[in-house]
């Protein structure tokens, strides 16, 4: 196997390392990968690979068969690393919702970026003359981008974090040179809770109220959380999080937060959810801070500063 080893590069941009931890959660299969299939040539999480030599000249990244990139593009360094990865990897996989849809960092897109930078870099206690950096710390981009906005990505695997089973499927598909089989339905389509029909709920409850369920009963006996009046993003969110056939948040008896991004690539979770509510006679105005429905998919120009009047 080692003669056929797959040269793999990992890289993280605006990321939290959750996607890498999800990789580790693959279980015993990971041992096979690490001892036989993978030859890791670059991974800042595991090994210190310099991007510059002592004199400040850039050192190129090694060539790889597969590259996994997690995280969003927040600054010029991220952009440079992503482009370098693209040029060195035969197959480039965007891992996790930050890389595919902007993720949590892209929440920044919904506010005034310049004000945000000022608040970060120029507080009342900083020395005079401090400004938004562009040398020692990489300069921020004009907004937060998903990886596929700035480079050609071969495979997009959303999730916060991505399901280890799906990571395994992606790795297998690359090894076997076939297309991966990834979920295409919504969270609702894969959810086993009881649905008795819509129309009763008019106003959305806040998550401060407990859902109605009995913890000793199986999840199949619980009433759909959306039908109970909670803002569950299941209808507008891509499936894939399920463990033992139950979407994870629903399994914990809390509403779906929407972390896999829109069901259809290019969909808009906020619009879709509001549309579903308006067409079913629910009061969409009862949703508090509705723009946070785009909390995982704010890149691609979806989350924008709201227009001030």
């Amino acid at each position: 196997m080692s003669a056929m080893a797959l040269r793999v590069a990992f890289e993280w941009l605006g990321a939290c390392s959750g996607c890498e931890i999800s990789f580790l959660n693959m279980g015993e299969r990971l041992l096979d990968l690490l001892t036989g299939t993978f030859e890791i040539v670059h991974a800042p999480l595991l090994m210190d690979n310099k991007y510059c030599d002592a004199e400040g000249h850039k050192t190129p990244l090694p060539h790889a068969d597969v590259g996994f990139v997690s995280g969003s593009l927040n600054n010029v360094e991220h952009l440079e690393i992503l482009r370098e990865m693209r040029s060195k990897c035969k197959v480039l996989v965007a891992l996790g919702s930050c890389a595919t849809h902007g993720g949590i960092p892209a929440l920044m897109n919904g506010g005034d970026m310049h004000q945000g930078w000022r608040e970060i870099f120029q507080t009342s206690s900083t020395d005079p003359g401090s400004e938004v950096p562009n040398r020692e710390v990489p300069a921020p981009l004009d907004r937060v981008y998903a990886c596929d906005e700035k480079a050609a990505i071969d495979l997009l695997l959303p999730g916060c974090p991505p399901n280890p089973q799906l990571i395994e499927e992606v790795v297998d598909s690359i090894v076997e040179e076939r297309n991966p089989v990834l979920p295409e339905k919504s969270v609702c389509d894969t959810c086993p809770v009881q649905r008795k029909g819509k129309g009763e709920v008019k106003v959305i409850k806040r998550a401060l109220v407990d859902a109605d369920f009995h913890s000793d009963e199986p999840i199949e006996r619980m009433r759909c959380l959306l039908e109970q009046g909670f803002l569950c993003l299941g209808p507008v969110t891509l499936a894939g999080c399920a463990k033992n056939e139950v979407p994870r948040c629903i399994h914990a008896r809390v509403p779906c937060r929407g972390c896999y991004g829109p069901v259809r690539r290019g969909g808009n979770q906020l619009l879709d959810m509001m549309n579903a509510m308006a067409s079913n006679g629910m009061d969409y105005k009862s949703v508090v801070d509705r723009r946070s429905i785009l909390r995982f998919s704010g890149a691609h120009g979806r989350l924008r500063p709201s227009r001030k009047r």
Partner: protein
Amino acid sequence: MNNEPKIIAFCCNWCSYAAADLAGSSRLKYPHNVRIIRVMCSGMVHPEHVVESLSKGADGVMILGCHLGECHYINGNRTALARSEMILELLEDFGFEEERFSISWLSATEPEKFVDAVNEMMERIQELAGSGISANSSHGGQ
């Protein structure tokens, strides 16, 4: 290149498209920069169609349906009405002025109403342009 405003009008097959058709064959004058898209019912125009049109460079979007109570599909235009209130509210979330969207009702025999609706939309867009605001001025496109 071309700075003329573009307006997308989603017209339902049964009333408003027929009205637009009649406006043409009656040789009524209306702004040439309205792009008419025929849909089966105003109730099938998803809010994404509206936001995507604006994101990709349209200056205004209109939905034109049958008079309330006269929908060919019984209550499709009521769905469109419920959605339109939501669209107006959400447009600001996406950084567009609410003037860029309108919904109106006309029957197949009211070509003048079609012309009036388009003219009114055009005036609204030109007023916005006069105030120096253009759609997609920031965070535009995809």
